């Protein structure tokens, strides 16, 4: 199971990097979204993979709650960042007349 999760993180990172390197803004935003999934999964994985032991008191044994708390806010902040970048892209399109990451080519 650990290998599958590590592989997923790897594929998400790789595809995210490839898309971030594209020349137009929208694929870059998609790439950033994939990268956020990868980063969130990785941060979450620092608490290791534990099945059926949510950190809600009453169950007896629990997984590590701290990475979960960190990732929870990271997901929300990640949304804010995605929103900011896509708005920046819209503004750039309005000001520069195209959606190339360097403004014009």
């Amino acid at each position, binding site marked *: 199971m650990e290998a599958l999760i590590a592989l997923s*993180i790897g594929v998400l990172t790789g595809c995210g990097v490839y898309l971030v390197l594209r020349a137009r803004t929208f694929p870059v935003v998609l790439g950033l979204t994939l990268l956020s999934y*990868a980063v969130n*999964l990785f941060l979450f994985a620092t608490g*290791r993979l534990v099945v059926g032991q949510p950190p809600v008191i009453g169950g007896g044994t629990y*997984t590590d709650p701290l990475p*979960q708390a960190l990732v929870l806010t990271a997901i929300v902040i990640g949304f804010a960042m995605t929103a900011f970048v896509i708005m920046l892209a819209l503004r750039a399109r309005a000001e520069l007349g195209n959606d190339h990451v360097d403004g014009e080519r």
Partner: protein
Amino acid sequence: MSLFLAILTPFFGAPLVAWLALRGRPQAAWAAGGVTLLALVQLLPAFAAAFSGATTIERLDWIPTAGLDLAFRLDGLGLLFALLILGIGLLVILYAHYYLSAQDSLGRLYAYLLLFMGSMLGVVLSENLIQLLIFWELTSLSSFLLIAYWRRREAARRGARLALAITGAGGLAMLAGFLLLGEMVGSYELSVVLASGDVIRAHPLYVPTLVLILLGAFTKSAQFPFHFWLPHAMAAPTPVSAYLHSATMVKAGVFLLARLFPALSGTPEWTWLVGGVGVATLLVGAVIALFKHDLKGLLAYSTISHLGLVTALFGIGTPLAAVAGVFHIINHAIFKAGLFMAAGIIDHECGTRDMRRINGLWKYMPHTAVLAMVASAAMAGVPLFNGFLSKEMFFAEAHAAAADWRVGIFLPAAVTVAGIFAVAYSLRFIHDVFFNGEPIDLPKTPHEPPRWMKVPVEILVVLCLLVGMFPAQTVEPLLAVAAGAVLQGPLPEHDLAIWHGVSPALWMSVIALVGGVLLYLGRHPLYGLHDHLAGRLDARAIYEHGLRTIIDFARRILARLEAIGLQHQAAVLILAAFVLGSAGMLGAAAPLTGTRPLLPVDGVSLLAVLTLIGATLAVTVLHRRRLTALIIVGAVGLIVALAFIKFSAPDLALTQLSVEVVTIVLLLLALYFLPPETPAESSQSRRWRDGTLAVLAGGGAAALAWAVLTRPTSSFADWFLANSVTGGGGTNVVNVILVDFRGFDTFGEITVLAIAALGIFALLDNLHLPAPGRDAAGRPWDSDIHPLIMATFVRLLLPLALLVSAFIFLRGHNLPGGGFIAGLITAIALIMQYLANGVTWTHARLPAHTHPWIAAGLVIALLTGVASWLFGRPFLTSTFGHPSLPLIGELPLASAMAFDLGVYLVVVGATLLILINLGMAHSVSHEEDRAREGTWKP
């Protein structure tokens, strides 16, 4: 507390005075004077103690874990400087009221002056070295504001920047020196440092420490070769020059030499560095001063020279020299402040400061002339004036030190030459300005200034005379306690008499006086020589050249980086991260795979992971068809949420699900304004390069994740689990961490969210985007944009969705849920109304702007934190109880729930702000487009 309050008083007074200045100039002057007096009164008990030889020390906890306290100290030296700062401050406030013309803002000047006053008090009254440095930098900043007071003038802005760069850089060096000093003695407290002189001097790092601290002191006190910022600081209004750039701030450097005298002095390095730089500054300043045609320029170089004199005295390093140094600090502050004020009066009345044009003012302003002459005589070191006493002590020390320094005649000769030039430039100040024929082409006809403008000068001049004639009765007690604090030991025998009999020092004085008069008589050929040489060696030109070189270098690098474009930059960044990361991994001896037992793979998980990988690859392959790619990204996000469910993270799954919905809606809205397809424009080689980078980065991330996942964990999770119920009153540990244990982090995060939302609001302001008339396949948009069935159902669903969100919110402390998730659910429910019913319909029923929601959320979160102060607890300490309500039963209530409510409001407000504003841009362009095609049915 009185020291701390006295330092705070001017800081609080500054805005008050600026506000009162709107009522009128006299009110501002009275208030500024009142604030200064108030600070003085608060210090009186400590003053009295210092006069009896006691040191007042006050301490307040600041960052106890880092060994940092707010610590204040007032001993003899602090007493002397506090008196100078507040006393001369009062005179300057009175003077500035008459100096500044009606169109200049007096309130701004007073506010800056008070800021400076508080900072300077902080420097001289600090017991902690780091705290001293903070105030030290504050004086640099307030000096910057004051030099640039006339901000429309180019010279003022350049002078301010120059001063800030030089003194700021010196302050940084000094910080490094202080840190070393703190490491050596194990404390930043002055009391400890001053008592550890032997440890410091014997330490192998003594020399670097000394050099770093001296860099700070020398730049601040305008010592050669850093002296060149001070003349350019004369672009400031004259009250500022009198106060900061002669009497107080430039004395901060010599104050530090005096303060750390017991800790650092007494080594050959100290003697040569401090003494050498002091004598060089003394000579350079005195010589250049004679040739300055600008009245304030002459005084500025004279100030540099006198600061060099004080530095040289501390460099000589004998106890008697230190006494003389302290004495000259007092004398110079008195006569130079007076001279600057007199120069300001002359400038004010003549409209120019050029001594080649200002002549013969004796006829026009005899009273001012007398005042200026007395102060000049003190500056020249004429007997019966205060400057003579300390200067003769200096001559005597220089003569006595000549034997020890093994420099023979050089030192006495150098200081005598400086003395000759000092007499000459003082004579020039008197003769050129007040005699020497008639004024030439002045913009104004000079006359005496207003009565009260002269009062500060008169007070200072009377002090010059009193100290000069009756030193033992006037200045001796103050000098004794101040010098005693410098030496931290018994005072040497010293005699402040005017007549010491025929001694070498007397002969040096005589030579200086006679030589100075002769030099002045022969000045004209020298002017020619100076004009010929001037500009050959200008320290400022060298500085500016160096600065330009650095800036050009940075510009070239930036231009290179920008020229390659964002894509290459990102590629370089990712490659660098990969290289550094793998270098770290390959260097480690540990195997990649750890010892943790692995979880078995089940069929459903395998299917989910394969779907995730397939979908991710599909996004990459299909990314040029944007809508398709976006839909697949949504699928990827959903599988990530499933992974969170599988691995015991229900809160994360809920958050991920709701964020996913919001993100996809947002990106769909944005896609409307962007081209539906990405053109195929990457070359084959570019795709190969990016693909290689992607494989490398992905492989690295997978390897890292594998290494982490297969290792046993050890974290402080147990603490959170054990204390969640007892300490936070909730069983959902993740939520308790968010709103309680790490509530301060969460507070920061919702603030970031709020700022991002406001930034987006600003980005969308006045955004005009071309809207496509047709969809990607070339079909016109559907005329039924708000389908009836969807609109009706969404309206019906709203109460239910809000109920779910309230439920999720309330149970969040004990079961999966909480403010973040509930906020997202509410936001989605409301956004659905916009999507289904349109902006117009929804705006009529919901507030158009959600800024107040964000603000309310932040305020509630903040107040919850502050409330715990009322109970004497640290910020954001939470409390909880289980009140029993009729019908509902026992209700778990924690104060953290109020904090969570703040989180909830910020999340709802920010999400709605982002989506609604984009949706409005959307609907505007959509309707314009329909109006153009003539198909719009209102």
